[in-house]
């Protein structure tokens, strides 16, 4: 039974979309400004629960900017502001009385380059829970193991939990970062080009991991690699830069449709590698 489940999990994304799924996050006319400059213009995009949504598009089209708006990473930039509506389970994420810490706990993020803290593997993973007041060793141990198992890294590092995380290989480091994001038990995991610094073998491992995580988490991935979007995602959003340099979403559909029969000519040009 378990084996069967495992097999089902690894069915290519495009073939296994449940027809009716719940919308976990919804962006509505979401715009991001840096001062007077509009980086993202009125993006309306549903993120389906327990599915993988890929955001693709040429460089500079605002993919990462959009992704960062999802867990309010723009709060860090002094003159950035967000307009429009963004909801998680129907609740707005921007607005008075919303604690950004809470938003980021529920919506985790994995970055382009593996960024483990210069600490031991264990401390990397315990960092998040400790932030939220979990200090009991037994509980921490459990969380560490659970998240490492979740990120398919447990067997590789179980004997060296107290060694520096920086001694791991690039691919392992990135899986550690995924595990670290999982330690605070998020509902959504945002991934900003998670494989761009990795070799093909490590990339495939991360992609397999994403397909497994999809059973329990909602994943949004920004990627330059169209093949990757095609391989892992269930839905794909295509973004482009408008003449005024603001990024907009031009097409959103099932991944299989985007990659076999896109409706927008620009999407077609992009996925066939003719964009320039």
């Amino acid at each position, binding site marked *: 039974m378990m084996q069967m489940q495992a097999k089902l999990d690894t069915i290519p994304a495009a073939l296994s979309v449940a027809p009716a799924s719940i919308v976990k996050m919804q962006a509505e006319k979401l715009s991001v400004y840096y001062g007077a400059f509009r980086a993202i213009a009125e993006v309306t995009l549903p993120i389906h629960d327990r599915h993988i949504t890929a955001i693709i598009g040429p460089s500079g089209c605002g993919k990462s900017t959009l992704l960062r708006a999802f867990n309010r990473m723009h709060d860090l930039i002094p003159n950035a502001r967000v307009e429009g509506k963004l909801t998680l389970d129907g609740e707005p994420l921007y607005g008075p009385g919303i604690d950004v810490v809470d938003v980021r706990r529920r919506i985790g993020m994995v970055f382009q380059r593996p960024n483990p803290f210069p600490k031991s593997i264990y401390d990397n993973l315990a960092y998040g829970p400790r932030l939220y007041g979990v200090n009991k060793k037994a509980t921490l141990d459990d969380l560490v193991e659970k998240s490492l198992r979740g990120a398919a890294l447990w067997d590789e590092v179980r004997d060296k939990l107290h060694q520096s995380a920086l001694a791991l290989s690039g691919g392992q480091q990135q899986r550690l970062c995924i595990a670290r994001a999982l330690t605070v038990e998020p509902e959504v995991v945002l991934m900003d080009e998670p494989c761009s610094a990795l070799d093909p073998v490590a990339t495939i491992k991360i992609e397999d991991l994403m397909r497994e995580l999809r059973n329990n988490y909602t994943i949004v991935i920004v990627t330059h690699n169209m093949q990757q979007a*095609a391989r892992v995602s269930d839905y794909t959003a295509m973004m482009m830069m408008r003449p005024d340099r603001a990024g907009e979403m031009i097409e959103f559909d099932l991944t299989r449709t985007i*990659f*076999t*029969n*896109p409706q927008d000519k620009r*999407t077609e040009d992009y996925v*066939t*590698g*003719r964009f320039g």
Partner: protein
Amino acid sequence: MPRTSFDISISQLKVNLLDYGARVERVIGESMESLKTRDRALAEAIIQNDALLNETRYELEDQCYTLLATQSPMAHDLRDIISILMVAIELERIADHAKNIAEITIYMGNEPLLKPLIDLPRMAELCQLMLTRALDSFAKQDADEAKAVAAMDDEIDNLYKQVFRELMSYIVEDPRTVTRAMNLLFAGHNLERIGDCITNIAERVVYAVTGRLEELNVQRQI
């Protein structure tokens, strides 16, 4: 930004396919000619030539696989290559049907025809026209034209029904004609199958152009 070398590869592949299609189209006419004029030498030549036609199909297939494996084609490119692949297979099947007709010519030997051939050459001509137009629609990426081509299959089917009825009446009248009638019926059947293959080609054209997989001629008969 065009993908120059990839684009050249795909257009070359298309040219190769159209070239192949033209050769197959010719064979349909030649096979009917061999039957009509009882030209056994021509029939022999057609049968020998079929091996070459089969080979071409494998070459085309191989070229498609190479592009699929090395270029990761997407969207229209993907549909184009898949369509070329499947059209090549249909063309080879058409050539086989034509070869079957040539084999009938040889099988019949010097035996006189049961009746002057009228409907069968008409069918063959229709097949040739259909195939030419189908390949044209692929070259021009014209889905409407492809649908119009598929509609022509009805006419072929009707002619086949007519041939069938006519030959049946011969057999009923004089059971000794059964072998000769069956030969012609079999030739007709091959032509009818060619029409079906061309309908499939038209479907591929529609897929390549629109991305929609649809059956074009539903009331088609087996």
